[in-house]
C-alpha cells in the first residue's frame, strides 16, 4: 500500500521535473494540473481503501534511502490514511480549480514546477515513518510553498511574507528536530517504530510536548506563532492559498497528533491544559484579527487560525479525557477534532477558491473595493455563501456538526476528576462559543461586503463569472460541505478506525441509527439530525413560499432603495468593511488591538472633509516579534563593528584567545 502511494508521489515529483522546462508552453498548465488531479484522486482512493478496509493492520515499507543505515521508512496506518485522504481531497480540488484558474497566471514558470512538488511534500509528511523522512518532507513542503508564496515576487510585500514564512517554518522545523532528537536519544533511533516502542520518561515527554506544540503550532498557526500565516497564505496564488490554509495546516496537526498521541506514551493531565489554552486563545484571537482585516484572503487566513484553535481545543479535550482513561469520551473529542479537520479543509479550500475567482474577475483582494458581485458572479457567490455558512458553524452544514461534537465533549468535562480541568474546560468552551459567534460575524462581513451591495469600484462592476473548471471544483466542495453536514454519521463512522488507533476507544456506530441521526453518547443526552433539519427547512420554506404566492400575492415591483428617504446613490455611502467591523472593534479592540480612533472635524462652515483614522496595533507582533527582530538587529549592528578593526586589533583577538586558553590550561587539572 505505501508502495503504491509512493509511486504516485513519484509521479508528482516527475511532473514537477517536467514542468521546469515546459512551463512556458501552453500545454504545460493543463498537463501539470491534470497529472496532479489524476494522481491525487488515485491517492485518495488508496487512502480511502486503507481507511475502510483493514484498518487494524498498518502496512509499511522501507527504502534504501534517507539516513544511512536507517533507510527511509513509510507507513500507512489509520491515522496517516485519514490525513492522506484529507490532503488529497484538498489537493484534487485545488488541481481541478487550477486548471481553469491557472489561465490567469502571469508567471507560470514560478508556479507549475513547485506546485506538484508541494503536493508531493505534503503527502510524504503523512507517509513518513521515520524522523528524517518526516522532517525532510516537512521542510520540503515549507520550501516549495515558500517558492509559491513568492511566485509573484515583484511585490515586495510578498517577498517579506515569504521571508517571515520561511523563517517561522525553519524555526518550527528546528523545534521538531529537537523533539525528535529527544525521542530518538543519543543513539539515534530515528524510526517511528522504535520511538513508538519506547516512550520517553515523563520529564522528557513534557519537553517534547512543548517542542511539538512549538514545531507543529508554528506551521499550523497557533497564536502567538501565527504571525507568518496571514501574510503568506494570501500572497500565494489562490489555489495554493487554499492548499496552505486548508491542507497544509492539517498536515501540521497531523504532526502534532503523531507525536503527542502516539509517541509520547500515556499523556499527563496538564498536557491537555497547555493544548486547550493554546487552542482557545488561538481560536479567539484568530477570529478577532479576521474581523479587522480588509483583504479578503487575509480574512480567510486569519479564520484558518481560528479553526486551528478549534481543532487544537478538541485535541486538548481528547488528551484530557485520555489522560484520565475515559477512552470513549476522548474518542468523542478526537472525532470532533478530526471531523473539523476534514470540514475545514473543505470549506476553507472552497472559500479560497472563491476569493481567487473574485481576484481574477476584479483584480482586487481588498473588500473595500469590491461589492455587488452576486449579480455578476452568481454561481461563485452561491458557493462562496455555502462556504461562509459552513465555516460559521451554521446548521445544516458540516462546520456545525464538528463544533457541536466538540461542545458535546466539553459538556462531559464533569466526569474528569481533576478540578483544574473541570474549571478550564468550560472556560475554553466559552472561548469557543465566542469565536464561533464572531466567526459568523466575520463571514457575514466577508460575504456581505464582497458580494452584496453595489460595486464600489469600476473593477468590481466589470467582473464576470469565473470559468467552468473553477466552478466545478467549488461546486463539488460545496456539495461535500452539505453532504457532510446532513449525513455526519457516515463520516463519523469512517473516522472510527483512526480514533480507535489513537485513543483506544471509539464513538458508538452512527450509521445504524434510525433517521440517520447522530448520537454521541446516548439518545437521552443529545442528538442531532442534520438531514431532518435540512429537509424541514426545505419543506417549511417551500410550503410557506407556495402558500403565500398562491393565497396572498406574488407581485413584485422594482424601485429605488428606500433607506429612510432615498439618499445619495453613490456606492461610497454603503457600509464598508471597516464600518461593519467597528462595533466589534469597539467592544474587543481596546484590549486586543489597542485600537485608537482619532477623529478630525473641520471647523464649522468649512467644507473640508472630516477624517476618522483608526490605529490598530498588533499586540502579539509587538510583544514577541518586534523585540526579537530588534534584538537581532541590535546584535548584528554591534557585532558588525568587528568587520572594521585594524589588523593589530585582530591580532589582539588572536592573542587574547591564546592567553585565555593557556590560562585555562594553567588552571585546569
Amino acid at each position, binding site marked *: 500500500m505505501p508502495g503504491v502511494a509512493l509511486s504516485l508521489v513519484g509521479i508528482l515529483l516527475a511532473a514537477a521535473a517536467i514542468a521546469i522546462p515546459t512551463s512556458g508552453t501552453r500545454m504545460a498548465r493543463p498537463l501539470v494540473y491534470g497529472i496532479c488531479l489524476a494522481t491525487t484522486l488515485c491517492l485518495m482512493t488508496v487512502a480511502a481503501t486503507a481507511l475502510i478496509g483493514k484498518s487494524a493492520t498498518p502496512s509499511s515499507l522501507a527504502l534504501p534511502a534517507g*539516513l*544511512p543505515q536507517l533507510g527511509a521508512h513509510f507507513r500507512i496506518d489509520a491515522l496517516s490514511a485519514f490525513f492522506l485522504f484529507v490532503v488529497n481531497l484538498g489537493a484534487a480540488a485545488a488541481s481541478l480549480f487550477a486548471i481553469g484558474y491557472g489561465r490567469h497566471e502571469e508567471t507560470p514558470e514560478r508556479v507549475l514546477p513547485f506546485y506538484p512538488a508541494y503536493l508531493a511534500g505534503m503527502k510524504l509528511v503523512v507517509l513518513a515513518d521515520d524522523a528524517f523522512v518526516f522532517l525532510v518532507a516537512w521542510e*520540503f513542503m515549507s520550501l516549495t510553498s515558500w517558492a509559491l508564496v513568492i511566485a509573484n515576487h515583484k511585490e515586495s510585500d510578498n517577498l517579506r511574507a515569504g521571508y517571515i514564512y520561511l523563517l517561522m517554518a525553519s524555526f518550527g522545523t528546528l523545534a521538531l528536530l529537537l523533539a525528535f*532528537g*529527544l525521542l530518538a536519544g543519543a*543513539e539515534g533511533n530515528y524510526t517511528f517504530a522504535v520511538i513508538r516502542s519506547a516512550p520517553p520518561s515523563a520529564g522528557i515527554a513534557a519537553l517534547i510536548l512543548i517542542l511539538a506544540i512549538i514545531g507543529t503550532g508554528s506551521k499550523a498557526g497557533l497564536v502567538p506563532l501565527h504571525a507568518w500565516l496571514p501574510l503568506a497564505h494570501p500572497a500565494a496564488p489562490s489555489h495554493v492559498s487554499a492548499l496552505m490554509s486548508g491542507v497544509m495546516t492539517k498536515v501540521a496537526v497531523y504532526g502534532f497528533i503523531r507525536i503527542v498521541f502516539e509517541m509520547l506514551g500515556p499523556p499527563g493531565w496538564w498536557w491537555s491544559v497547555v493544548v486547550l489554552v493554546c487552542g482557545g486563545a488561538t481560536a479567539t484571537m484568530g477570529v478577532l484579527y479576521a474581523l479587522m482585516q480588509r483583504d479578503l484572503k487575509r480574512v480567510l487566513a486569519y479564520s484558518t487560525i481560528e479553526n486551528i484553535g478549534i481543532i487544537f481545543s478538541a485535541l486538548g479535550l481528547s488528551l484530557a479525557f485520555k489522560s484520565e482513561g475515559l477512552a470513549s469520551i476522548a474518542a468523542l473529542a478526537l472525532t470532533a477534532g478530526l471531523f473539523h479537520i476534514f470540514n475545514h479543509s473543505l470549506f476553507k479550500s472552497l472559500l479560497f477558491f472563491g476569493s481567487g475567482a473574485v481576484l481574477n474577475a476584479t483584480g482586487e483582494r481588498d473588500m473595500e473595493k469590491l461589492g455587488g458581485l452576486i449579480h455578476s458572479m452568481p454561481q461563485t457567490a452561491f458557493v462562496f455563501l455555502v462556504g461562509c455558512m459552513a465555516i460559521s458553524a451554521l446548521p445544516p452544514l458540516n462546520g456545525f456538526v464538528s463544533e457541536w461534537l466538540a461542545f458535546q465533549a466539553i459538556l462531559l468535562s464533569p466526569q474528569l476528576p481533576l478540578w483544574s480541568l473541570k474549571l478550564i474546560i468550560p472556560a475554553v468552551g466559552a472561548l469557543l462559543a465566542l469565536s464561533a459567534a464572531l466567526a459568523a460575524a466575520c463571514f457575514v462581513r466577508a460575504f456581505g461586503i464582497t458580494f452584496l451591495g453595489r460595486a464600489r469600484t469600476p473593477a468590481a462592476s466589470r467582473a464576470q463569472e469565473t470559468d467552468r473548471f473553477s466552478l466545478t471544483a467549488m461546486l463539488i466542495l460545496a456539495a461535500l460541505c452539505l453532504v457532510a453536514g446532513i449525513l455526519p454519521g457516515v463520516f463519523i463512522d469512517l473516522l472510527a478506525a483512526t480514533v480507535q488507533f489513537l485513543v483506544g476507544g471509539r464513538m458508538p456506530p452512527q450509521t445504524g441509527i434510525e433517521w440517520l441521526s447522530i448520537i454521541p453518547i446516548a439518545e437521552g443526552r443529545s442528538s442531532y439530525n442534520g438531514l431532518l433539519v435540512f429537509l424541514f427547512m426545505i419543506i417549511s420554506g417551500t410550503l410557506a413560499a407556495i402558500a403565500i404566492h398562491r393565497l396572498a400575492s406574488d407581485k413584485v415591483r422594482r424601485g429605488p432603495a428606500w433607506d429612510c428617504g432615498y439618499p445619495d446613490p453613490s456606492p461610497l455611502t454603503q457600509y464598508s468593511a471597516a464600518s461593519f467591523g467597528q462595533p466589534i472593534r469597539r467592544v474587543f479592540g481596546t484590549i486586543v488591538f489597542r485600537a485608537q480612533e482619532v477623529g478630525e472635524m473641520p471647523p464649522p462652515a468649512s467644507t473640508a472633509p472630516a477624517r476618522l483614522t483608526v490605529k490598530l496595533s498588533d499586540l502579539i507582533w509587538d510583544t514577541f516579534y518586534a523585540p526579537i527582530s530588534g534584538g537581532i538587529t541590535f546584535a548584528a*549592528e554591534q557585532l558588525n563593528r*568587528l568587520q572594521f578593526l585594524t589588523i593589530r586589533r585582530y591580532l589582539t583577538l588572536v592573542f587574547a584567545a591564546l592567553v585565555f586558553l593557556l590560562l585555562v590550561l594553567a588552571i585546569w587539572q
Partner: protein
Amino acid sequence: MNLNALDAVLAIPLFAAAVLAALPGYQLTAKLNVLASLLTFLAAISLFVIEPRSGDYLLVDDLNKVFIVLTTFVAFTTSVFSASYIGHEIEIGRLKPAYVRFYHAMYQVLMFAMNLALLANNIGLMWVAIEIATLTTVLMVGIYRTHEALEAAWKYFILGSVGIALALFGTILVYMAAKPVIGEGLYAMVWTVLVVHAAKFDPALLNVAFVFLLLGYGTKVGLAPLHAWLPDAHAEGPTPISAVLSGLLLNVALYALLRFKILLALNPAAIAPGPLMVTMGLISCVFAAFMLYRRRDIKRMFAYSSIEHMGIIVFAFGMGGPLANFAGLLHMTMHSLTKSAIFFAVGHIAQVKGTQKIADITGLTVSTPLLGWGLVLGVVAIAGLPPLGIFMSEFLVVSSTFARQPWLATILALGILIALGGLFLRLNTIAFGEPRGSTAPTHASYVPLFAHLAIVFVAGIYLPPTLVSGFQNVARLLG
C-alpha cells in the same frame, strides 16, 4: 603501480605548475589547467580502487581518502569554472595575461600543497604543506592589485603568518611529547607511529600543543575570533580562489586539526579537546550568523556563511560520538560542494552585473534565470533546507546533540536559524524582485555549478553505502 597513484596525485599538479608557469596564452593554459586537475582527480579516485601502502612520509587511510577525492573533485570543477571566469576577466581587462600565467601555475601549486597536506604522514610535512597553500593563496588573493585586494592579502598574510607560527609551535610540542616514548628522530613525527603510542605521551604537553594547534590551524579554518582574514580574502580575490578557499582550504586546515584531535582523544589523561572545539564552534556559528545581516558585498556574505558552517562542523567534531562525527564529516563534504557551487554562481553574477555590491544586484531570477535559480538553490542548500545534503548533516548534529546537551544544541539551532534569516534576507533582493541595472551577456559555465548542486541534492536523499561505511570508519576513529 600501487605507489604511482599516490605519487601522481602530487606529481601531476607540481609538474603542471611548472609547465603552466612556462606557457603563454590563457586559452591554452586554462585548458591545461582543467586537464591537469582532471588527471589529478582520476588519480585520486584510483586510490579507492587500489589502496597504496602508506610510507613514512605519505599515508592513505579512510580519513584522508574521502578528503582527497573531494579536494581533487572540487579543484577540477573549479578549474572548469575558472576557465570561463578568467576569460571574462581578461576580456574586461581586470587581469593582465601575464598574471594569468602566474595564476594558473599558482593554482596547481595550491592543489599540490593541499594534496600534500592531506596525504602527509608526517606532522611536520603536513605543516609545511599547509603553509605553502597559505602563501600561495595570499598571492592569489592579491592578484587584482587593487587597494582592497592588497589590503585583504596583507591582512591574510599577517594573520596567516601568526597562525603558521602558532601551529608550528604546537607541532614542536607534539614532537616533544612523543620523543620520550618513541625516541628522537623522524618517527616521533610520523602520524601512524604517533597514533600507536599516543596513550603514553605526556598529557600536559599534549594539552599545550593542542591549544597552539587549535589556534594555529583554527586561524586557517576561520574560527571566530581568528577569522578576520577570511571574509576579506574571499571578497577581494578572484572568485575561483574564493571557491577553493571556502570549499577546500578550510577543510584541509580542519583535517589537520582532526588529526590532532584523534591524538588527544587517544590519550586518556589529556584535556578533552571536545569542549574547546564545541565552544569555538558555537562562537563561530552564532557570531557569523549575526554578521550575515549587515553585509553589503555578496562574496563577503558567503564568506561569513563559511565561517558559520565551519563552526557547525567543529562543533560536531567537538561533540564527538559516532553520530556527530559522521555528521561533521558529511557536513564538511556537503559544505565544500555547496559553497563552491555558490561561489561559481556568485562569480558569474558579479561579472554579469559588474559589481559585488548586494544593493546593485537585484531580480536575478528574472534577468539571468539560470544563475539566479542556481544561486537560490545554493542558498537553500547552504541554509540547511531539505532535501539537500546539508540538512541531513544538520539534522544529525542537532538531534544527536540535543539528547546529550540540550542547551548547546539549542544555541546551535538558533545560530542556524539566525544565519538562515540573514541569508534569505539578502537573497530576497538578490534573486527576486524587479531587476535593476544593466546585465551583461553571460557566457557562464553552468556545468560545475549544477553538477555540485546535483550531487548535494542526491546526497540529501541517498548516500552510497561505500561512502557511508567509509565515513563511519572515520567517525569511529575520531572518537
